């Protein structure tokens, strides 16, 4: 008897089936944005006096209803905001040992911030400010912190803060007990401590 090979299945319509699936996924799905500027809200206010903060340790940023920017009582273009914020944070004007900042490379202007740990950026915005302006300002201020953190982490660990954060986020979940992981976390905390993100938003005015 002649050996008969099994008849081949016709694969001609495979493409049609795959196209059908493809079109289904194309139509039903949207690429979701999964990135954003992380921020923390302060807990609800309790009736206690806010701690005294020296005027010179506050960097005042106001955005009005026409999306104009007022920084430390002067009109400013948003392109220069990061630079001004870096200058303020990195000033290190503190003189007595308690306030002095050993790693700052700023002008040591006595009229500006003492120490990055004390320096606070205060953002006030009008209700009519547009969201894109608000986000751009927030972004620029966050960038100022990122620049300084990058600088310090390069100096201390020869690696940018960003790449350390990347490594932390992509660490395999099963290996979080290893000493390497803890060391990385430790380093990130240290750099973060050098330039804590003290970005404060004013309490909204009661209407």
């Amino acid at each position: 008897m002649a050996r008969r090979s099994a008849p081949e299945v016709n694969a001609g319509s495979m493409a049609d089936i795959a196209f059908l699936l493809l079109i289904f996924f194309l139509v039903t799905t949207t690429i979701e944005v999964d990135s954003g500027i992380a921020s923390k809200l302060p807990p609800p206010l309790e009736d206690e006096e806010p701690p005294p903060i020296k005027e010179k340790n506050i960097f005042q940023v106001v955005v009005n209803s026409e999306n104009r920017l007022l920084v430390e009582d002067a009109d400013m273009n948003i392109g220069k905001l990061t630079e001004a914020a870096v200058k303020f944070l990195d000033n290190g004007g503190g003189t007595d040992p308690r306030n002095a900042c050993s790693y700052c490379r700023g002008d040591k202007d006595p009229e500006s911030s003492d120490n990055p740990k004390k320096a606070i950026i205060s953002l006030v915005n009008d209700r009519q400010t547009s969201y894109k302006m608000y986000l751009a300002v927030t972004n620029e201020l966050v960038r100022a912190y990122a620049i300084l953190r990058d600088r310090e982490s390069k100096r201390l660990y020869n690696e940018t803060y960003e790449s350390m954060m990347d490594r932390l986020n992509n660490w395999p979940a099963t290996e979080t007990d290893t000493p390497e992981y803890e060391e990385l976390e430790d380093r990130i905390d240290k750099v973060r401590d050098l330039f804590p993100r003290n970005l404060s938003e004013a309490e909204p005015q009661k209407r």
Partner: protein
Amino acid sequence: MSKFKKKKSGELPAVNTASLPDIVFMLLFFFMVATVMRDDELQVENKLPKANQVEKLAEKKKIVTIYIGSPSTAFQKQYGVSEVIQLGDKISPVTDVQTYVNTKRNEMDEDDKDAMTVSLKVDQKAQVGILTDVKQELREAMALKISYTSLNGDPLKNLKK
């Protein structure tokens, strides 16, 4: 000579389509992997602004999303044109934010409750006022971890229009 007769016919040979399924499957897998099913149907305009200091959001199960924007054309008759808040799949007043966040939080696993992040998807044309109201509500609800969801790009380009 009859050996070569066949080749003389002027017809073009058919293109081989055997690898077509492979190509289509490749596209299919790309789309399957790259896209995420959206849970809520958008009822507001939601064109996100750009920013370059973005961080990746936490896992999806730890995230609560709040949309802010003007109602889309189909809903303008009902809700007007000024900005509204969309919680889940319906447009709600600002007073519902706390309840919504608390409900969502109760549905989460115990471990995820502390790591809950509220992703604020605000339309770039919206005004900050309504966002401020939402943030006040979130503070009251003790949902303090938030993220201004935005596309990766230069924020200054947003402003130039």
